[in-house]
């Protein structure tokens, strides 16, 4: 991996680890861009009036915030960075099945990102990340097409990554690596890949339709020409609901690894977690209509989607119970990664249960398109996935770079981040129940107190994140050397830190599942 350092050697690399790092740089950029938008949103919402930005700008802010965060940060975050880096290592392979395609998919993400960035700089988009028609196709005067094109291209990046992972897992496992010996992180990336492969094409078509609609006025979604805008919503959510599992499944994979590693125990039920992972990926495709309970969908569909949404929650419940149960009787080290993992367990559960509450159809009549929904998904995506990402980061940094970060500072940052998350997004749940609609640049004065609380929380969060960024970047370049600080028995820890160019100096000998701490002769 350290063979050569030139810019060209990076830009033309076919090494999955380097490509993972390229992704890392890209998504970090978009994360802070999205975070900057979020900060502006929160500051604007400090007061009921629109005194920082105009409504028009505000609408662009939350749209661009979500586009940057969802399509260019969160969806590629764990799979394309850590999955890319660790999936081949964890199954004892030398690389992904299609290294060139892997590099291509990074370029696609970058090109897509550039299109969207161009749209943002040129004037922004104001449709909301959901692009609902006919607003997006016939009324909005913003850069819808450029943004849509960017997302379209990024979609292919996502499909190709998924393709690569699926084929790799099927064909490149080391001898002895049976399916039920695979690390759960691999399982979760495999399941994620299935969603990427099967869901993303629908997004692609949906976006193309928005695109041609704007250019040729086909009228497929435009009621003025006979189209049905509710059908657009079916298409959009058929991708975008499964996409939320693209965002959370890899995070769950991280948590599975960490709980085992820091409790020094195999998970209470490996099989239950593996099966639930696939279950979420498949059943997750059947619940898209729960975003449309009030959209004018038929009562029949409301009932079906309400029911199916409940089913998908059971799988998550099983996982949470397995993780918590694993702690019982363990040997728990409260290292920084584990602290983040525990924050995840707690906050994700709250966020998940608010999702179940939304899925109960009649409560959605009240909560739909209010801050309750905003609170729900930030709790899962930020307090869930982002937290898991930070956990993973603190866990694998020594492995990836052979260096260590200052642990005390990291604990402070963890405290800030967790407190900030809870304050920012729990306040939003309360706001939503009080009736505050989302996507409002200005709002009635009675909501002010909670908005202030949320904004203050977001500052604490921002402080924690900046601190984290600072010491992690420093650690990557200057941190003290460290090879294996945790004593983890994950397969990836059996090679050197950082791993050599082809991952394994001698092939991985698989003689059991990972994390078998009780064995007499841990390898």
């Amino acid at each position, binding site marked *: 991996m350290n063979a050569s350092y030139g810019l060209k050697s990076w830009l033309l690399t076919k090494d999955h680890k380097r490509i993972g790092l390229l992704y890392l740089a890209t998504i970090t950029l978009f994360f802070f861009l999205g975070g900057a938008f979020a900060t502006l949103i929160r500051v604007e919402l400090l007061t009921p009036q629109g005194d920082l930005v105009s409504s028009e700008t505000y609408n662009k802010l939350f749209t661009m915030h979500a586009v940057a965060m969802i399509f260019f940060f969160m969806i590629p975050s764990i799979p394309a960075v850590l999955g890319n880096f660790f999936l081949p290592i964890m199954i004892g392979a030398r690389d992904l*099945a299609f290294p060139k395609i892997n590099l291509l998919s990074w370029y696609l993400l970058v090109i897509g990102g550039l299109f969207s960035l161009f749209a943002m700089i040129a004037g922004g988009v104001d449709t909301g990340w959901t692009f609902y028609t006919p607003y997006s196709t016939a009324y909005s005067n913003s850069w819808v097409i450029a943004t849509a094109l960017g997302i379209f291209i990024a979609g292919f990046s996502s499909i190709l990554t998924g393709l690569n992972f*699926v084929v790799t897992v099927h064909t490149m496992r080391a001898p002895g690596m049976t399916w039920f010996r695979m690390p759960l992180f691999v399982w979760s990336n495999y399941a994620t890949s299935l969603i990427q492969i099967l869901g993303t094409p629908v997004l692609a078509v949906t976006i193309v339709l928005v695109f041609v609609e704007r250019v*040729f006025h086909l009228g497929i979604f435009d009621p003025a020409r*006979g189209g049905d805008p509710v059908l657009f919503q079916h298409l959009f959510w058929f991708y975008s609901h499964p996409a939320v599992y693209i965002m959370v499944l890899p995070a769950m994979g991280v948590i599975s690894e960490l709980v085992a590693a820091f409790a020094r125990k195999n998970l209470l039920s490996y099989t239950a977690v593996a099966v639930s992972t696939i279950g979420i990926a498949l059943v997750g495709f059947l619940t898209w209509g729960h975003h449309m309970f009030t959209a004018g969908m038929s009562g029949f569909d409301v009932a079906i989607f309400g029911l199916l949404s409940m089913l998908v929650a059971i799988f998550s419940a099983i996982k949470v119970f397995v993780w918590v149960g694993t702690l019982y009787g363990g040997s728990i080290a409260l290292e920084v990664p584990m602290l983040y993992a525990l924050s995840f367990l707690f906050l994700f559960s709250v966020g998940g249960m608010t999702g179940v509450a939304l899925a109960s159809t009649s409560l959605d009549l009240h909560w739909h398109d209010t801050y309750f929904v905003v609170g729900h998904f930030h709790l899962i995506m930020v307090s869930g996935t982002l937290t898991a990402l930070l956990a993973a980061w603190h866990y694998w940094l020594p492995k990836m770079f052979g260096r260590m970060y200052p642990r005390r500072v990291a604990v402070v940052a963890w405290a800030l981040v967790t407190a900030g998350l809870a304050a920012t997004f729990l306040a939003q749940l309360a706001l939503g129940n009080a009736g505050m609609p989302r996507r409002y640049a200005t709002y009635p004065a009675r909501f002010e107190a909670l908005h202030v609380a949320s904004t203050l929380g977001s500052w604490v969060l921002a402080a924690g994140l900046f601190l984290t960024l600072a010491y992690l970047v420093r650690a990557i370049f200057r941190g003290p050397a460290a090879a294996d600080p945790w004593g983890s028995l994950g397969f990836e820890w059996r090679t050197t830190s950082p791993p050599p160019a082809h991952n394994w100096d001698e092939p991985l000998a698989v003689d059991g599942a990972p994390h078998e701490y009780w064995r007499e002769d841990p390898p």
Partner: protein
Amino acid sequence: MRSGRLHAPYADLAQQGHAARLGMWVVIASEILLFSALFALYAGYRMAEPDVIRAGARRTSLGLGTTMTYILVTSSFFVAMGVAALRRGVRRACVAWLLAAAASGVVFLGLKATEYHEHLAHGLAPGSHFAAADPTGGGLGLFFALYYVATGLHALHVLAGVIVLAILALGVWRGRWDAAYTAPVELGGLYWHLVDAIWLFLWPLFYLLR
């Protein structure tokens, strides 16, 4: 056998071939979902206004559509024969079959173009240029919007397929691929069959069910 066929992460050609084939099936799965969105739209509108969709289908050219179906099915057979020929090691025959299939694809595209041309001449243009008399009061425009998107997307796939088949024919001709390593030709074939199979559904929906 030529060197340079085996690529970096693989242990042997068998593994590489298996990976490639699996990759192609994954692409096929993805493509199926790509078109499914359009089928969902079609189904939605057909449920809402069956008569309008029927009226639309009456305006497409059944003769041309059916001819195109026969052509694609035949070309699919050609490709299958081509792959079989390569497996037996008869490269010349393989090239011929592949070229025949590509030529069928070109004919298909030609017919498609004629058809579009005819529609345009009758004012059945997509979107705001729609200018035909519309007994259904606007629904026809919608039908044709769907029709253009679906068949257009499919035609793009055919175009890509023709190019792929041509490249494969050239490669086999030059001996890049032979009986010892048929995977690339098989993959191209799989893709072509997929394009054929999708048309098998588009044809009844847009031409036949009038």
